[in-house]
């Protein structure tokens, strides 16, 4: 059974991704700062999924954490870099410590985690890296300058890394969700959300399960010829 790791997998999109991958038969390692009640309930009834506590803001410990994962679960097949901070605020008044933290958790941490968890994939000559980006990385959104910068960074990371490791049988892709109803978008005012819905060709918001389906596809053998790309799942918002 192939092992895959999902960061930020305890709630929202990450939990939907974890559930979808476990249903496909992968051995899923859910990583998060702490387990959520929803995730705990699901883990209790799922044999091929387990939780590992880790705070990605602690970048100094990522190497050691990666070693521990490899020792415990063997060589990883897939990595889903989903954990991210969705801090919003006007740039001119956003505190420097918050700017640093968003950059660290959304960019530096996934890059370091990929650096170390890519190694077992290189040895196996097969693997999958899936970076969860956002349409904000290319469209922009008021109050999300730093978040948007980190998502654009992940797309750039995807493209270069795919060229670097393709020869070793590893694909690297981004998935860019549109607006979804999760804890992260809770702050969006009702009217704003209604207008996003109205404007999308499909007249609604993409659901976390739609995005999880795309991740599941990219993880599969069917997607072996897809690398270095950004898959958008947004009910057509950016059409």
């Amino acid at each position, binding site marked *: 059974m192939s092992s895959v790791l999902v960061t930020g997998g305890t709630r929202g999109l990450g939990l939907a991704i974890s559930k979808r991958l476990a249903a496909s038969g992968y051995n899923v390692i859910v990583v998060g700062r702490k387990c959520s009640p929803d995730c705990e309930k699901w883990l209790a009834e799922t044999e091929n999924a387990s939780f590992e506590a880790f705070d990605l803001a602690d970048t100094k410990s990522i190497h050691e954490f990666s*070693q521990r994962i490899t020792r415990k679960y063997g060589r990883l097949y897939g990595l889903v870099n989903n954990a991210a901070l969705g801090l919003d605020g006007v740039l001119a008044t956003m505190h420097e410590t918050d700017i640093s933290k968003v950059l660290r958790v959304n960019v530096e941490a996934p890059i370091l985690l990929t650096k170390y968890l890519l190694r077992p994939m290189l040895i196996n000559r097969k693997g999958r890296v899936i970076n969860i980006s956002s349409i904000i990385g290319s469209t922009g959104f008021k109050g999300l300058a730093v978040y948007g910068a980190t998502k654009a960074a992940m797309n750039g990371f995807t493209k270069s890394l795919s060229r670097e490791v393709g020869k070793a049988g590893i694909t690297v892709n981004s998935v860019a969700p549109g607006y979804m109803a999760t804890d992260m978008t809770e702050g969006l005012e009702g009217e704003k959300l209604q207008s996003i819905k109205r404007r999308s060709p499909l007249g609604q918001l993409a659901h976390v399960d739609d995005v999880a389906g795309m991740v599941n596809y990219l993880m599969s053998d069917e997607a072996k010829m897809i690398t270095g790309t950004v898959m958008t799942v947004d009910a057509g918002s950016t059409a």
Partner: protein
Amino acid sequence: MQVRSLILELFDEALEASDSKLECEKLEDETVLLNSGLDSLGFAILVARLEEELGFDPFVEMEEAVYPTTFGEFVAIYENRSSKD
């Protein structure tokens, strides 16, 4: 197992894994790594396999970035780190 012989063994494995061939007579201390036939991705595989076998990556533990140029330097880095265990 001696660190040097382990490196030699895994070097061959990495050459094979990256579809490369040794481009010198044999690996000696003076061999410049860039001329050995192993490409950068092959080196990543070598470092990854050594970490699996030895349980450490000496480059990660260093305060400053170090990029050895010869095979001898590469081996010395692993031997020095190994002697601390």
